[in-house]
């Protein structure tokens, strides 16, 4: 079996088994239960929700991201192992949605992490979500979903964007030594 055949095989299996971490920040999360349960049942495609980024293949961002939240998303994304894919869910991840002019909400997710598929809508219907899953599966099986490679390749760019936007916020809690000092 040649290298390409092997990777085709691997991609096929990967496409058949995609585990998802849903990062529910906004209102869009309400559309997920129908997707998971009997009405649409995403498990038939081998897609099941997981508890931690270590286990997951897909990172699903369901809504607007404030700067603080973005920090967590980036950390979570970093903690996932390759191969990994990001689904931007709803208008908020595309252009900030109704928070487009907010001082502390980012307006475009793929400036900070690579997004493989955006699902438009406010909010997107479950059908749209299912469709995106199928799309992603096809892309994976064809070997087209390479967002994570893009991230590695252009890491400086992403990092600069992240640092730029994080500069606008201070840590919520104090530093460790300050915490211990006050305690």
């Amino acid at each position, binding site marked *: 079996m040649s290298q390409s055949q092997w990777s085709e095989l691997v991609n096929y299996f990967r496409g058949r*088994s995609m585990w998802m971490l849903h990062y529910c920040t906004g209102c869009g999360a309400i559309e997920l239960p129908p997707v998971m349960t*009997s009405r649409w049942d995403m498990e038939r495609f081998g897609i099941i929700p997981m508890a931690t980024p270590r286990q997951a293949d897909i990172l699903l961002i369901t809504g607007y991201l404030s700067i603080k939240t973005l920090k967590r998303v980036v950390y979570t994304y970093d903690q996932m192992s390759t191969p990994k894919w990001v689904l931007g869910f709803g208008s908020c991840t595309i252009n900030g949605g109704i928070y487009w002019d907010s001082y502390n909400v980012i307006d475009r997710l793929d400036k900070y992490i690579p997004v493989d598929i955006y699902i438009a809508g406010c909010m997107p219907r479950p059908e749209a979500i299912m469709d995106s899953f199928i799309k992603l599966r096809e892309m994976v099986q064809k070997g087209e979903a390479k967002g994570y490679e893009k991230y590695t390749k252009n890491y400086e760019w992403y990092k600069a964007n992240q640092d730029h936007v994080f500069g606008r916020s201070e840590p919520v809690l104090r530093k460790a030594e300050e915490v211990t000092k006050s305690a």
Partner: protein
Amino acid sequence: MTILLKLIQGIGVGALSIAVGLLFIGIGRKITARIQRRYGPPPIQNFFDIFKLLSKRSISHGFAFDLGLIAGFSALLAAVVFLPMGQINIFPHNSSLIMIIYLMTMAYLGMAMGVSSSGNPNATIGIARALTMMMGYEVPFAAVIFSVYIFSRTGSLANIVAAQSGGFLNWNLVRLPFGFVAAEIALQGMLGEKPFDMTIAPSEIASGPMVEMGGKYLGFGMLQHSIGLFIETGIMVDLFLGGASNIWIFIAKQFVLYFAALMINAIMPRFRIEEGVSFMWKFPLLLGVVQALIVVL
């Protein structure tokens, strides 16, 4: 030559147990889905998952992490060869049940060591829960085991199977009904099915022991689970369902037991941990003790 043969047999049995275990879990997922009026994944979904997991890059927290996960998988693989299953019985004179149980314990210890060394408290909490639950279900299970021991006058699984030969009425299921019920409930705990799945409670402790596992580590975990499922149901088949004359009947009987567990799993919520243990020490233990009393007196 014999050694080589046994080696090949052993590896074969290991592969079989993995395959059957994975298939069982896949079928289980399908059945659960149907109960919940979903379509459900294909029964072989778990093979996809395993393949994906083993081919996915992963992170590790150190050598103990690796070793623990390998030990968890390997010790069960070592235990499964001692299990008499139908006509396949590689070491007929070495099938002491307690030995198999202690070998399985090594797997748990390895697993526990691995996930704890990751340094994630969720994992450790999960392990603590698992061990607590283990103390819960082992007691009624021990009551049943020792009843069967005394009843059959042997502690070797092969001999217990032999003692049940000759028809349905000779099965321990019929002769030791209380014990069977107790063991069945204990099995539910052993398999970690609801209502005893507090170990991996995903929403409370982020799937407990598996929290830091990704890629092949999670794959090893799944393999361990599938072999464990195979051994545990296999022990039950040997203890109560009279073993089997060939491997297919054996697997069928195993599936019957697993099916029962699945049914309960599909409709139950989760116990709190101390509720789970005290439940185990009330009803099943009472049944086990009644059974032991009946056997002894």
